[in-house]
């Protein structure tokens, strides 16, 4: 199922949205300020909504990756012990040993940016600047052969990166299993 189909399938009848909007507010709570909203940082959608302005190169990302990421994820993104791999695995998803990485599995490059920005490096989440996040995202995509070594990423180009497994997802088909009533009388 495409993303549009997922959205349509789960869409709310407009009526209910209006009904909620028309309930008279109680006046509890205060108006949010731009500072309240800024404090939560970026949340990024696949079409780029929410991406802050900025840019970074894969070359800058390589230096940052070596210093801040390689110790856990390996110098080529191969993963170390319980620290997951960030590269490789393309072509393995239908095998008995699937390797699910950014390169083989993740459908959107925006998710890579969003996750690194909110959650990595693991022991110091939230410390990467916007530009550093563009840079290290470019390098992780380069490690997967998705971007060239001289790639530059910014808020305009990141959403246009096409990930190898972009069409690898389908909606929830359940109930998908017929449970037979195993009862011999």
């Amino acid at each position, binding site marked *: 199922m495409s993303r549009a189909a997922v959205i349509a399938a789960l869409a709310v009848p407009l009526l209910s949205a209006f009904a909620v909007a028309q309930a008279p507010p109680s006046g509890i709570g205060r108006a949010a300020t731009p500072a*309240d909203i800024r404090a939560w940082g970026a949340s990024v959608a696949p079409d780029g909504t929410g991406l802050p302005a900025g840019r970074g190169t894969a070359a800058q990302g390589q230096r940052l990756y070596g210093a801040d990421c390689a110790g856990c994820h390996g110098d080529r993104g191969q993963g170390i012990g319980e620290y997951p791999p960030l590269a490789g695995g393309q072509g393995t998803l239908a095998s008995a040993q699937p390797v699910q990485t950014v390169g083989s599995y993740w459908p959107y490059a925006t998710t890579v940016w969003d996750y690194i920005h909110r959650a990595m490096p693991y022991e110091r989440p939230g410390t990467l600047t916007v530009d550093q996040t563009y840079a290290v995202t470019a390098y992780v995509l380069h490690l997967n052969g998705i971007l060239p070594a001289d790639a530059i990423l910014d808020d305009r180009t990141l959403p246009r990166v096409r990930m190898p497994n972009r069409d690898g997802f389908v909606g929830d088909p359940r109930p998908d299993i017929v449970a037979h009533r195993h009862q011999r009388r």
Partner: protein
Amino acid sequence: MTPLPDDPALTRRSFLTSGAASVGALVVGATEPPRRLGAPRRPYGERSPHETATRYLRPTATPDTASSRTPLQALYGIITPSALHFERHQSGVPDIDPAHHELLLDGLVDRPLVFTMEDLRRFPSKSQIRFIECAGNTSEDQVGRPGIDPQRSHGLMSCSEWTGVPLRTLLGEAGVSPRARWVLAEGADASRHARSLPLEKALDDVLVAYGQNGEALRPEQGYPLRLIVPGWEGNTNIKWLGHVRVVDQPYMTRDETASYTDLMPDGKARWFTFLMDPKSVITRPAGGQTLQGPGCYEITGLAWSGRGTIRRVEVSTDGGESWEDARLTGAVLPKAATRFSLAWRWDGATATLQSRCTDDTGATQPTREEVVAVRGLNGTDHYNGIKAWYVHRDGSVRHE
């Protein structure tokens, strides 16, 4: 639900006679030891030192992104004591001062709002008993390496009474735009765990909860504020909730794309598989326990379904040859753990104990083979196959 007649194996009369006999023995043999005063009052209660059940913590190099499991075999009724509720954190348990915690509600709304904890408690509250289950619960059973006891096989499910304000109420305060289709919920944990939820669910039964089993949430359950998303995979029940943004599309966060998606044998993966299907487990007698010898035992366990209310639990003691209806004891509630019970007489032979539940939508549990035939062994979230425990001649009950 209509009560089933008492099991003839264990009639009221046999309980009465054995009870009378033991009372007689006590009166005849008693010489009273000197009595001492007990312990004084205390401001916050603890369980008896004789009770030792704890959560199971699998050793890991990354304890901040890990889980702990509820000792289901040690529980009675349907409520999980807050101290034993399973955990799953992505970046540890934050220490949050509720006086400084706020919920921001923004995005496609007429009035972006900020609520303090005091504000949230001014809204009409709602309490509901609901289970939360990790999508990955029982995945070891699917891959054929079942846990040795109910805690290790099914312990990523717990059930509490949650109290809070419906998310629908807060969305009404802010005024939802007609363009809105989803909400993005974020936690105030270090890695800002985030999930997208369809607006339809947000307007249905999602609770912004501050209470758990009569007191404030435990820190590891999201103190001071969390989402309860009834019947849906645990990962969507955002803890330490600080931000809800009303949006027009799913944001495709890491935990709705790279994780919590179900890889199928053809290499395609299912996403947005939110619902937890009907599941049940016998918690006594179960793996890790020993029967004291042939005779009467209660077979009891828990059943739950994210689709609705448990209507029926059947139990087999002969490996699925025949099934008998168990009694549903206590409260039978939608999207809540439901206790079942069946009296059983063990004859001393090997026995295979299984339970199979059915909910009010008619959904029931398949066998492991039926699941694996369709879904294979790669995508192991959302598994709900029938569970078996094996009673051996020496009375030991095992997972194999």
